């Protein structure tokens, strides 16, 4: 398990681009998918509920139409109540004319039995007289009118309300379950003579409603005006209160309208002719079950989509990250080998990145080469400077001066001279260090000037003015000595008068260290100054520069060490003197000399 986890974590590091791509893909795909699934679910639920409602309504309307048609047929049959024989029978019954009624009795039996054959569900067609005599398909019986609900309903109506009445369900005397319809029969003077009634087998309602199903377990039930169930697919519930189905108290809302009660969806409609209610009862759980299927399908769709998205993301991320990985590998290789070349296969951003990286490597290689060359050059210049320090005639002349001093017993001066020369060489070598302190550099140039002053006598004087605040900063060694040498040999030494002066100044200018080496010697013509400055800036080929070899060495060393913004600037006026300004960065401690400029 740990191995798998490790492998997984290794393969799918959260910070890796591939994982991010996969997560992005998954997120971008899943959010709309989940939204779509939710929207689809609720839209489907809405449509399903609407369909269930519409279907239930259609079914109930169909049941209503079937019942209405059937009841209308019965109403038409009951129109026969005004038949001559029926009226005669009723009239003769009123006067108890038994013998006179014989022929009508037989005729009525025959007619009523023929009517009964109109429909297979009819169980009895009968005429009931005011005296409680009922003549029907099974002969003549006596009824207790006070207990005959249908008779009572019709007897209490007026001639204006001579419509069909319905009563039941109830048991007929032959033991069958029936409901009865009937119409009042009126005489010539609108006098109530009796009723014509039809008993219909209750199975009729079952035949109309039994096979109707609302879903798998939904059904249609019929309830009479008193809330008694007159049809239910479970016969044992017939005759019971509708409260058994809908819970108590039932109220009246079930008679019409659409609502849910517990786990049931109920729709009711009242049959006007009978004042019965047709109620469709569906099982909400079925709806939910169907929705569960949809939800499962949606879930499966989402899960399937996630898998597909992840696979696609894996594939795409692989395609996308492969060049990046190659690039990464190339970059790693480039750390060890700058000659590495990233293979570029595409023109997209990754290809461009590869090209840019290759360009960068090329540039680095070029810079490296340049840097190597510059370092080489710097070392060469340093060597030259050092060689300049130990020029044989300088040493020879200095030793001649020392001998002369010894011969003249100027021993003190000899000691100073030897000390100065020793210090001069010691600082020149500086144990191979590139950087020395400004104090050492200034001491070096002071020793040099002291030695040269002893050699050249009263020809010139010198002054060194260096701010104390800069002496602890570092500088390349042997920068000032060549400038001072130039000031001596090209400035003040050839002056006729002994008024030559060399001033060495050191100060801080903002974030740089400046040195000035100025003399009041012969100076230079302007074109020569311009040529020298151009030579310093590299604007004039080196081989064309006839003068200023020492200046260029110093300038190049500074530029190589600190960059183009540093270096020398030369100003000079013919017969008035020359001034060389040297700018250096402020370097503290043992910072290594590195090439700073681009």
């Amino acid at each position, binding site marked *: 398990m740990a191995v798998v986890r490790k492998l997984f974590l290794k393969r799918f590091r959260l910070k890796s681009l591939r994982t991010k791509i996969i997560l992005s893909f998954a997120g971008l795909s899943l959010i709309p998918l989940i939204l779509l699934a939710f929207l689809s679910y609720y839209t489907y639920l809405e449509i399903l509920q609407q369909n269930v409602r519409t279907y239930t309504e259609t079914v109930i309307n169909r049941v209503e139409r079937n019942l209405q048609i059937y009841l209308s047929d019965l109403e038409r049959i009951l129109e026969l109540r005004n038949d001559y024989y029926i009226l005669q029978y009723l009239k003769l019954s009123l006067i108890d004319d038994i013998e006179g009624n014989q022929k009508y009795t037989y005729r009525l039996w025959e007619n009523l039995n023929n009517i009964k054959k109109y429909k297979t569900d009819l169980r009895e067609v009968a005429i009931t007289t005011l005296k409680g005599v009922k003549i029907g398909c099974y*002969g003549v019986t006596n009824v207790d009118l006070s207990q005959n609900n249908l008779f009572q309903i019709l007897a209490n109506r007026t001639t204006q309300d001579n419509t069909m009445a319905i009563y039941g369900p109830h048991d007929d*005397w032959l033991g069958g379950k029936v409901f009865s319809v009937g119409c009042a029969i009126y005489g010539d003077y609108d006098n109530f003579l009796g009723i014509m009634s039809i008993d219909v087998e209750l199975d009729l309602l079952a035949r109309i409603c039994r096979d109707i199903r609302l879903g798998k377990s939904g059904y249609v039930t019929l309830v009479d005006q008193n809330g008694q169930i007159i049809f239910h697919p479970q016969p044992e519930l017939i005759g019971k209160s509708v409260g058994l189905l809908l819970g108590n108290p039932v109220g009246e809302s079930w008679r019409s309208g659409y609502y849910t009660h517990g786990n049931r969806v109920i729709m009711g409609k009242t049959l006007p002719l009978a004042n019965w209610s047709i109620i469709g009862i569906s099982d909400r759980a079925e709806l939910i079950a169907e929705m569960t299927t949809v939800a499962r399908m949606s879930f499966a769709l989402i899960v399937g989509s996630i898998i597909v998205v992840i696979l696609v993301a894996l594939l795409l991320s692989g395609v996308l990250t492969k060049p990046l990985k190659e690039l990464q590998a190339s970059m790693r290789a480039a750390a060890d080998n700058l000659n590495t070349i990233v293979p570029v296969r595409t023109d997209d951003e990754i290809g461009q990145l590869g090209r840019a990286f290759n360009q960068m490597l090329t540039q680095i290689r070029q810079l490296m080469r340049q840097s190597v060359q510059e370092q080489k050059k710097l070392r060469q210049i340093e060597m030259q400077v050092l060689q300049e320090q130990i020029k044989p005639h300088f040493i020879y002349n200095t030793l001649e001066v020392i001998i002369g001093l010894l011969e003249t017993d100027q021993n003190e001066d000899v000691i100073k001279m030897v000390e100065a020369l020793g210090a001069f060489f010691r600082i020149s070598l500086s144990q191979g260090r590139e950087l020395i302190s400004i104090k050492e550099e200034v001491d070096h140039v002071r020793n040099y000037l002291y030695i040269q002053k002893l050699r050249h006598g009263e020809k010139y004087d010198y002054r060194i003015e260096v701010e104390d605040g800069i002496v602890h900063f570092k500088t390349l060694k042997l920068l000032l000595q060549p400038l001072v040498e130039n000031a001596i040999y090209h400035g003040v030494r050839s002056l006729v008068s002994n008024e030559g002066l060399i001033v060495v100044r050191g100060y801080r200018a903002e974030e740089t260290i400046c040195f000035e080496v100025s003399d009041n010697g012969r100076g230079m013509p302007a074109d020569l100054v311009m040529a020298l400055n151009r030579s310093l800036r590299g604007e004039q080929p080196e081989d064309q520069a006839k003068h200023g070899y020492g200046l260029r060495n110093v300038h190049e060393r500074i530029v190589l060490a600190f960059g183009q913004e540093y270096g020398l600037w030369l100003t000079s006026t013919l017969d008035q003197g020359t001034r060389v300004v040297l700018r250096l960065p402020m370097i503290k401690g043992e910072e290594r000399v590195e090439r700073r400029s681009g």
Partner: protein
Amino acid sequence: MDLLNRKKGSILLLLVLITVFPPVKALRVGSSVRTRPIIISIVPKSLDNPMLVEAKAAAELTARRLNVQVEWVGPFKVDVDTQIQIIEGLIRRKVDGIAVSCSDEERLRPVIDKAVAAGIKVATIGADAPESNRLFYCGTDNYAAGVECGKAMIRIVTAKGWTDRELNLVILTGSTKAHDLNERIRGFKDATADQIKLNYQTLLICDEDTTTAAKAVEAHLKKHPETDAFFFTGGWAFLGPPEAMPVYDQWCQNGGITVAMDTSYPVLQAALRGFAQALVGQDYRKMGEFTVSYLVCAIKDLPIPSEFIDTGLELADEASFSELLQTKKPWDIK
């Protein structure tokens, strides 16, 4: 006849007694006080037999006189299942008395016994179920009626001088399961045996339906014109229009012999037309009257004179058809 007259006298005396001195028990059924009038239900084999209309009228008039209610309930056509269903319904309704005209005595016996067991006074009318627990049978002695028919057939055959011939005879009956009809056939056969030579060609069954009866006779004669004589155990074939039986009409004119049970108005009319040479009738009015009267007696725990209340026979031949017709009320039902 004397016996018959004595019986009539006894019945009338009984009726007077019942009317004037209703027994105390008559006011009670079981231990509870009666809150409704006595109900007697008469269950005929079918409603569509107009011959029974006379019995119904007589029963209703008797009931009115005795201050009881009478019902006349049965299947429209002969249908023993419906008859059983109806009797079951009457048991549920707890009527006081039931009189059944048995279309199938075997099938009806259990339900009759059930009604008796339920405390209902049960009688049979017209067609008996002698093996049942019914209180009494009110109607014709059907065996005697059959014997009379046989005797009439012998007289006619003898008068025609056909005694030496073997005659092809056809019996038309309503059902093979009705006790009354079977008794008539048995009486007829017993009476004619060894007296005349009869070849019983076939037994036609009409389910006591008038149309079926006429059609059956017509069809038989078309197929068997050699038929010499008919014995009708009931008058069903003559209750329809005579024009519906042209083959039979022609057969009669050719000398065919018919003896039939029934002396009701339309049957006598047909006989006068030549459709029958002898008739043996039942007294339907007495059937209705006596059945109601004796059931009321039974309900009131008064004695019943006999298990068999004989309503007598009525004999008629070509000489008396016209005279007898004068005594009948014309029917105008169809």
